[in-house]
């Protein structure tokens, strides 16, 4: 067992790094579906925009300060995009129509990004100071990926505190559980929903930027991200923070451990795992209590 751990520590860490960005991206998708019952297929495109904020600002390697500025800018753009999307989708009912609308938005956004930045693969560099490697059990491991894990943990804890320990969070959770009752006590759920949408999109953009030094920035990235985020949401269960976290960790580990241990069937493992969850727990592993 120790030998196995020794050989696979880097792989496990990598799974966590992937899980971190997936969590940051998918939690918005999950909460938006949970609160607004809106299937937002433009979520991946918002992450794509985040990644290209990195390209625009960090094409030449930047300092940590510049990277933080890029994160804030990505968050701001995400907020705006999320608000616009929320406004667009409030009057559209039915998942198919929402899917078509948001997919259309996604295609337009992706095309605009291509127009501005071109079709080439772009690389976003980890900031100076975080681009080196440290030795983890004798093997070099990129510092930036450890930072990704740390950011994922910080975001998870922060969201947990906000959602579970504050009045604002209680309102959001209540809106997930019973929208009419929240309206009845005098809270405009439209604002709650719009806020969640905007916040989720901001996180998606930040996630896209954080992932960019590893995943790169190129046309088509939005589909990869959306697909993985949807798998995370399906496995974890809709509308729940813990579900998104568990889903992200599972998807991250299945993705990397599968490749390391069972390379022949690695491509099927992810969707195999999702199929299994759908068979045994159709609502996902940790769905929000009372979610519709």
């Amino acid at each position, binding site marked *: 067992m120790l030998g196995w751990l020794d*050989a*696979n520590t*880097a*792989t496990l860490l*990598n799974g966590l790094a*992937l899980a971190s960005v997936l969590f940051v991206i998918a939690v918005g998708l999950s909460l938006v579906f949970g609160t607004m019952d809106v*299937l937002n*297929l433009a979520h991946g495109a918002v992450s794509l925009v985040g990644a290209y904020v990195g390209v625009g600002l960090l094409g030449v390697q930047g300092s940590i300060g510049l990277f933080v500025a890029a994160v804030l800018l990505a968050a701001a753009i995400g907020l705006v995009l999320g608000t616009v999307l929320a406004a667009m989708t409030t009057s559209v009912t039915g*998942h*198919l129509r929402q*899917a*078509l609308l948001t*997919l259309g938005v996604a*295609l337009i956004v992706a095309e605009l990004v291509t127009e501005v930045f*071109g*079709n*080439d*693969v*772009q*690389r976003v*560099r980890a900031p100076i100071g975080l681009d080196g*490697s440290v030795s983890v059990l004798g*093997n*070099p*491991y*990129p510092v930036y990926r450890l930072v990704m894990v740390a950011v994922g943990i910080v975001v998870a804890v922060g969201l947990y505190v906000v959602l579970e320990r504050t009045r604002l969070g209680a309102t959001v959770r209540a809106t997930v559980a019973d929208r009419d009752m929240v309206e009845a006590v005098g809270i405009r759920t439209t604002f709650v929903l719009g806020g969640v949408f905007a916040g989720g999109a901001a996180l998606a953009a930040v996630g896209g930027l954080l992932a960019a030094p*590893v*995943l*790169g920035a*190129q*046309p*088509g990235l939005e*589909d*990869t991200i959306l*697909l993985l985020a*949807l*798998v995370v949401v*399906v496995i974890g269960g809709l509308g729940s923070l813990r579900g998104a976290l568990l889903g992200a960790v599972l998807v991250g580990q299945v*993705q*990397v*451990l599968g*490749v*390391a241990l069972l*390379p022949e069937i*690695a*491509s099927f493992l992810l*969707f195999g795992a*999702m199929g299994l969850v*759908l068979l045994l727990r159709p609502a996902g592993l940790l769905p929000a209590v009372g979610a519709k």
Partner: protein
Amino acid sequence: MSVRHATVKQLGRRAGLVPVAAALALVLASCGGSSVSGGGGGGGEDGGGATEGGGDVGPVKIGLLVPLSGVYAPLGEDMEQGFELYLEQNEGALGGAEVDLVTVDEGEGPDTGVPAATRLVTQEQVSAVVGIVNSATALGAKDTFVESKVPLVVANAGANDVTADASPYIWRSSFTNGGVAAALGAHVAEQVGDGSVYLISADYAAGAESTAGFRETFEAAGGTVAGEAATPFGTTTDWQPFLNGIRESGASAVYTFYAGAEAVGFVTQYNQFGLAGEIPLYGAGFLTEGGVLEAQGEAALGVQTSLHYSDTIDSDRNREFVEAYQAAYDEVPTVYAVQAYDAAAALDAAIETAGATDSESIAQALSEVGEIDSPRGPFTFDENHDPEQPYYLREVQESEGGFSNAVLSELDQ
């Protein structure tokens, strides 16, 4: 939509499997379909503007079939520039016949590329076609050209099968996947001596052909293979588990085939996980060609590849070409530009030889063109109509304003 057998510049995209995305998959599919007509209609450069040409032969209508949209668009742009540069240098004529050029979008895959090829042959009635990036498109469109007896000069797609049966109408000014890799085998075997080499490539036709080509000459030169991995094509973004495998195999060098986004990911992570300093990385030249190298930056330093071109080839012919290309487009030419440039040169010679512009005469004359004076070095077409050409050992080095593939030597074959 999931697996495409393309040669270079591949980006993995969509595989709609999620239940909620079932509708999405349909929508995506139909969107992809609509771009067939949409993208394809864009072409038509200088449409009916051709006048009576100078010389004995009348104007000749040539089709340029290159990707103007999708992930291969940067390659298509290079090829268009290469072809047009040749025309400019020859007063818009090939073999004395004024050229009426029809440019059509190949798109990403055969779903767009094959109809575009058919359109060039049947509607536009061109005398010859140059282009095609994607191997699957080349394989799919091949029969159209053979049946309608219109010569096709493939200016990129490298699948061995495209020219395997040597049709008089199918020619190639680029390379075969196996050929590029085979050129490197003996050199690497000599470098590693008693050591062994790990083979890793994308799990699709081009990757398999490339590693097979390398393995053949490498083992013939006495090399041993430490291990082999084929990474899921288009979906691999994290190479760490594979890099672990390379480390554990104890290999003293690595041979790889990747292109496009995967080339950027692989080379960058090879560096990040500390293998770059320890285990030399060899590959087919697409690993570090064009825009890919810019994205890799210093992570690619020291990577050695084989290819039939580099803008740093030390010859008068190449310097003259690079200068003209830079003057026209303000960037250094890529191998893709050269392949299209040489396709134009081949047609130039063929029309000159034939003294006629009909497709049958051009196809026949292509077998008589002899040596083509290319920036890559002179080459001839072999019995399969593939170029018999020099291959260069290139190393990524720092140069003014960035990174380049410096030529170390010509590879013995």
